[in-house]
């Protein structure tokens, strides 16, 4: 290894200069009282001695500086580097031969290719020129082009030889530490994102955002191969799909699908790395723009988080699957997702995030058109109660389908429950309703009574047919009660969580529920269910499982028929019989028949002039009013009295006979919505 040549200072003519320079290098020559030595005062030294001292002094200086482990440099007042040591050359590749190095120094990162790095070193240089001392860590370029990070300290000093101000600095190569810290914080941030994510898509989009931030990338995207040339794309730029990507990038990504995993490949404007995704092969692409070189160090820095990302995605996928399984199982044990018309249910498990608890409701369509109704409540709550509930619900459903009646069903369920740990003391209300007549047969195994709210607001408790909870006395005969749900009355079945409160009699809760039903008499039954849940909720929310089932008699009429005038008579017949079940006064019936007849005739005549399609009639009775809806799949024609005078008359009749008529034309069809109060 060759000794770099130091920037040699001319030995100063004045002895003080010589000594001062020496003192600067750590010597102590000036402190010696030369006059008392045989050499005498330095002023009287011969030239030869002075030269000898100067040479020794300079060598001492050089040896001292070169012995430093750290790179050493001296800048003049203009910022030009005028002196360096061996370590400087070792680190940056720039030797003493080309001294001085004037700013902009050749090791500065390129202002165009890497503006951010350039900005940082320029700021550090400004600091070096202005501040009396300081330190900084900056990116620099080695003579051979590779990126380094150095940590420097500097001090302003006075050169006694020249009388000028100089800056003396040292630095060391901290590239490895810099990247280690960067990698650690990047991995920590990525890890945090991945663990916080509650689903696979969330994990992926969070990780991409994190990568974008630590790489200062313009965009980061992930393409998941589907094996059919239409990969699905997730990106930090929302709304970007595969076909929106430039063709060149698509080719690059497609190529990368076949590359070895976790091995970054860099291109002019970014880098791609292939990872394994739970659903296939994924390529993560970092768009670094034109000005950010992807260095050798970067390859390692990308492959590590890429591996981390792949692991995180696999874990998120497992969590997704577990959750989906859990949800599917919970929903399967909870009960039917579709209900017969006229019914509404609400279900509120006490133990979040479980979607089920020990309560349940069920409706079972029996072969003869009747409907089995069940509301039950297992002891306890949470997962354990839910598993018991699931078994009892299924068994009760199967037993009801045997059509032996509610009491027999519960007696069979007694035996079934006796064999299931945790099923003892479950309470159940089991009923069979004939939706045509409102006739309800029921039996209760220790369950709170059903509440029947008549249309005048009076309430009746369904407190017949009562016996002990399930499995308490297996084999004992259970009684049955019957009642008829009158027209426009509402039946409410619930579990005790809805009506039972500490330090309050159950009757108070039942009264409250009855009042809520009566106050909601103008609501459709589903809205009524929401209203009751809100109104009866304790201040801090329900602290027990709650199941609520409502039925308002009769269920709405909902029929679909071809757009033909021959259908008008059968539709009238069906509507007339439904109106009779609603127990409406004859003139209200007549008004509704005429108004609906006109709306249907309109749908047939105008709505379907071009393309015949079905017409739908829905009639829903609330307590004091009826809502009638006729929907067609055609385009409503504004009546032209000059062409068809009777159509104009039809409209006039509808408006005169109903309290409110709304006609909503739409591209898919026209809806006529009519509403009328039921005269008492």
């Amino acid at each position, binding site marked *: 290894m060759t000794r770099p040549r130091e920037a040699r200072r001319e030995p100063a003519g004045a002895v003080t200069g010589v000594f001062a320079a020496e003192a600067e290098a750590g010597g102590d020559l000036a402190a010696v009282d030369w006059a008392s030595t045989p050499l005498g005062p330095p002023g009287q030294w011969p030239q030869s001695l002075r030269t000898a001292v100067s040479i020794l002094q300079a060598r001492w200086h050089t040896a001292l500086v070169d012995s430093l482990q750290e790179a050493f440099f001296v800048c003049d007042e203009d910022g030009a580097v005028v002196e360096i040591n061996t370590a400087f050359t070792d680190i940056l590749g720039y030797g003493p031969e080309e001294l001085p190095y004037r700013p902009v120094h050749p090791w500065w990162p390129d202002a165009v290719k890497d503006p951010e790095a350039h900005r940082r070193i320029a700021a550090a240089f400004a600091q070096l020129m202005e501040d009396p001392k300081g330190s900084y860590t900056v990116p620099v370029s080695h003579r051979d082009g590779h990126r380094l990070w150095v940590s420097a300290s500097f001090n302003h000093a006075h050169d006694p030889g020249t009388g000028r101000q100089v800056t003396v600095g040292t630095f060391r190569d901290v590239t490895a530490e810099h990247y280690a810290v960067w990698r650690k914080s990047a991995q920590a941030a990525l890890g945090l994102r991945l663990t916080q994510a509650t689903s696979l898509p969330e994990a992926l989009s969070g990780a991409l955002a994190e990568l974008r931030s630590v790489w200062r990338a313009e965009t980061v995207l992930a393409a998941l191969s589907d094996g059919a040339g239409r990969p699905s794309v997730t990106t930090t730029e929302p709304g970007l799909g595969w076909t929106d990507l430039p063709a060149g990038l698509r080719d690059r990504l497609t190529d990368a699908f076949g590359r070895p995993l976790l091995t970054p490949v860099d291109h002019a404007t970014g880098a791609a790395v292939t990872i394994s995704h739970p659903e296939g092969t994924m390529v993560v692409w970092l768009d670094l723009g034109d000005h950010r070189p992807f260095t050798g160090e970067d390859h390692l820095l990308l492959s590590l988080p890429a591996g981390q990302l792949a692991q995180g995605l696999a874990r998120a996928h497992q969590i997704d699957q577990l959750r989906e399984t859990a949800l599917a199982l919970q929903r399967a044990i909870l009960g039917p997702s579709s209900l017969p018309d006229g019914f509404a249910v609400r279900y509120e498990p006490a133990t979040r995030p479980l979607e089920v608890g020990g309560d349940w409701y069920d409706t079972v369509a029996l072969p003869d058109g009747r409907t089995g109704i069940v509301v039950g409540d297992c002891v306890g709550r949470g997962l354990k109660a839910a598993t018991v509930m699931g078994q009892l619900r299924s068994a009760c459903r199967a037993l009801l389908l045997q059509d032996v009646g509610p009491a027999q069903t519960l007696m069979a369920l007694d035996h079934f429950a006796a064999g299931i740990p945790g099923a003892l003391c479950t309470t159940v209300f089991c009923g069979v309703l004939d939706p045509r007549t409102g006739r309800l047969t029921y039996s209760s195994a220790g369950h709170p009574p059903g509440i029947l709210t008549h249309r005048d607001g009076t309430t009746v408790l369904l407190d017949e047919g009562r016996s002990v909870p399930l499995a308490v006395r297996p084999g004992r005969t259970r009684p049955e009660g019957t009642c008829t749900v009158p027209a426009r009355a509402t039946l409410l079945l619930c579990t005790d969580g809805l009506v039972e409160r500490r330090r309050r009699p159950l009757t108070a809760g039942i009264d409250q529920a009855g009042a809520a039903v009566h106050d909601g008499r103008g609501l459709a039954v589903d809205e009524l269910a929401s209203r009751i849940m809100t109104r009866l909720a304790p201040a801090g929310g329900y602290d027990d499982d709650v199941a609520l089932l409502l039925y308002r008699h009769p269920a709405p009429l909902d029929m679909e028929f071809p757009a033909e005038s021959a259908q008008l008579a059968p539709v009238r017949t069906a509507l007339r019989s439904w109106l009779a079940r609603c127990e409406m006064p004859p003139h209200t019936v007549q008004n509704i028949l005429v108004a609906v007849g006109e709306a249907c005739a309109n749908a047939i005549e105008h709505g379907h002039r071009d393309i015949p399609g079905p017409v739908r009639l829905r009639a829903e009775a609330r307590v004091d009013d009826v809502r009638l809806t006729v929907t067609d799949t055609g385009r409503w024609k504004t009546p032209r009295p000059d062409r068809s005078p009777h159509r104009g*008359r039809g409209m006039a009749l509808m408006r005169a006979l109903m309290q409110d008529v709304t006609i909503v034309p739409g591209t898919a069809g026209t809806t006529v919505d009519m509403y009328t109060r039921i005269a008492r």
Partner: protein
Amino acid sequence: MTGPLTLTPGHAPAGATRLTVAGEIDMSDIGTLAPAIETTQGPLIVDLTAVDHLDSAGLSVLFRHADRVEIVATPLLAPVLTISGLTRLTTVHGLEET
């Protein structure tokens, strides 16, 4: 359930013709009702006592012959006959509740 529309022609006092209608009248029945009225001449008494549904299509037929028709109906049809204005053009009997 009401059966199909029946039309029974007959004679009324003072040389008038009588047409007794029974059943329900909607747009699908116009093809039967309209010719039955059109084939008569002179004063006509249309007896709707046994009709329990009359829609705007049926009303149109009656409107077309309002100048020579007298109607006998029941209170059930009163809203339809009144709202449509037919009661203002022709004589309608039997709308009052008894």
